[in-house]
């Protein structure tokens, strides 16, 4: 599904990804862990097409397409979804009309007819229930006045509505209390299936107790330095990241 090959990128003059390789197949959940400043969130930004990030080398293919050649909206329409670390508040844009526009632009791209108002409402109700998202929040302005937890839960609700092939969750666990973390994780677990995949970017092992990954990767200094199963996360929790740093040659 996603194949990242020797990816180099920089923001302004700073090199942040230095030859990153990663392959994600349908049905898999990958966790990317690493110390602060290792390039975890930058990877999410580069994949989603955030302005300001410049790819200087390597390739990324997504379902056979050159992902890096696509605009951010076309990446989303192809089935990539980034759950933001800091979701944006947009007063005056209603959550509902925003989601409806997004969903229908994605459907149009795929050559599908737009959802009727009734179909949309039905889908919205089903997904609210599935990911335990408060109906009152759906009718408000996009993230306006939402608590940190509500914003993160809205990201998962959007993910449920848009049904991407690949969901990248950028530090979705940060700032969540244990109850919110459980709800978010339950949502993701319900949305997991054999056709989609998730990349969880996280600093802490805690999230991985709830969403159990198939692979854990350690990102350090712009590269993946170690890959293992879910037990690697526990080891990192215990030992920290320092032991992974290669001795200076």
């Amino acid at each position, binding site marked *: 599904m996603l194949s990242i090959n020797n990816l180099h990128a920089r923001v302004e003059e700073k090199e942040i990804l230095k030859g990153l390789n990663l392959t994600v197949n349908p049905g898999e959940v990958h966790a990317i862990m690493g110390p602060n400043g290792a390039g975890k969130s930058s990877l999410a930004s580069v994949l989603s097409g955030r302005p300001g990030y410049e790819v200087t080398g390597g390739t990324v293919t997504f379902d056979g397409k050159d992902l890096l050649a696509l605009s951010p909206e076309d990446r989303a329409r192809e089935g990539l979804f980034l759950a933001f670390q800091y979701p944006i508040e947009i007063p005056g844009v209603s959550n509902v009309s925003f989601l409806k526009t997004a*969903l229908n632009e994605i459907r149009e791209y795929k050559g599908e007819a737009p959802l009727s108002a009734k179909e949309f409402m039905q889908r919205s109700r089903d997904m609210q229930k599935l990911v335990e998202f408060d109906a009152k929040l759906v009718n408000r302005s996009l993230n306006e006045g939402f608590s940190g937890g509500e914003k993160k839960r809205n990201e998962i609700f959007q993910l449920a509505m848009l049904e991407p092939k690949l969901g990248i969750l950028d530090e979705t666990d940060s700032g969540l209390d244990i109850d919110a973390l459980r709800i978010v994780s339950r949502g993701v677990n319900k949305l997991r299936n054999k056709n989609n995949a998730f990349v969880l970017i996280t600093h802490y092992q805690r999230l991985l107790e709830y969403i159990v990954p198939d692979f854990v990767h350690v990102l350090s200094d712009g590269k993946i330095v170690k890959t293992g199963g879910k037990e690697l996360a526990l080891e990192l929790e215990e030992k920290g990241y320092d032991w992974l740093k290669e001795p200076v040659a």
Partner: protein
Amino acid sequence: MIMTKYIETPLNDRLSAKFDLAILRETDIPTQKIRKEAFAFFQKNGFPSIKHEEWRFTNMLPFLKDAYDLDVLEHNVSKEEFNRTAQLVSEHLSALNDSMKGTHKGAYRIVCINGKINEALSVLPAEEQLRVLSFPEAVEQPLFKKHFGKIAKHNGFSAVNTALFSEALMLQVPDNQVVDKPVHLVNVYLTETAIWLNTRHLVVLGKNAELDLIETILSDNTENALFVNSVTEIALDTQAHFNHYDIQTGRQNLRLVQHTEAHQERHSHYSNYTFTLPGADVVRNTLHLYMDKAEEECHLYGLYFTAGRQIVDNHTEVHHQFPNCESNQLYKGVLTDHSKAVFNGKIYVYEDAQKTNAFQQSNNILLSDKATVDAKPQLEIFADDVKASHGTTVGQLDKEALFYLRSRGISEDSARNMMVNAFAFDVTQKVKHEALRQYLENLIAEKLQALS
């Protein structure tokens, strides 16, 4: 050196010639006196230049150079003009109706062609609700005598209007009358050559009277220079409520200078909603509110969305002269291309006006780095128990927010439109008529589309 503040153009001489004609034609002695005083003011002062403090951001000189036809003689609409107008009005109404979707319970309609009411195209309310009088027949009315020419103060433009106007419309809502549907005033402008119009309105609401007035502009599709120099005087009696909507669209070579002044009595409410869209070369709105008694309210909302090399200038003054009054101003601007906007808002709180609440806010988004905004809020407070505030912001669309929307599959254009509409939402949501609000949102979307 006061003269350097003003400009002399060949137009001034032609205005003088036309003034002599207007005086000859004027049979009403008090009105003749008002005209003479106004013209004396103009002759002394001329049109304001950018050296004049109130006009320093908007240079009118380039718009005063065309050879405008200043015909002040009464002019009857030809059959062809009538048909053209009927066609334009019907298209305009169908655009309005398309956005109404059954929520609309209709509106009365006053169609004015170049300032003159056309009864055949108008649908007026019953006379006991609203009296619609054109100028020559209005002069005998006591309320006309009381207010006409007494409310609007002179500047170069308003003085020319007062001296030379040939058509005027008086709208009067008698005491205790609530006009049951909004009144849609369609200002149709037809040109065969460059013309200068001095259009004039007097709106008088009696005690407990209520009126919603929606003004729109219909201009022909020629490129003739068209200068619309209008004056609106408003008098609101005790407990009157006036919602005044002004939708300013237009075309290239249309220049719109509009002077609106209102005097309010106790417990009256005046709300002004001015929406300026791309089209006209220059729009200058001067809006002055005088709160003449205690316990009044006024709300001034403006949205200007500018394009091309357009200049849109809103100058407001709110005079709090008595205690316990509230004024609230919210102006928002979206600027594109090489356009320019000016917001100059003054609030005066006089010594006796204790317990005044006066608020003013002006927020602007620049969608182009060639666009400019001059915003100048001014507060002059002479009372001590007052709540007053003002604020101005100028910024760009939030890039992170744009990216957020795009990352959900929304195209860049739709994302920008959503954000512009969201920015304008504070103002558009104030429009009480659903159909009108929808019409405005459609207009904004259409104009945004034209940019991309």
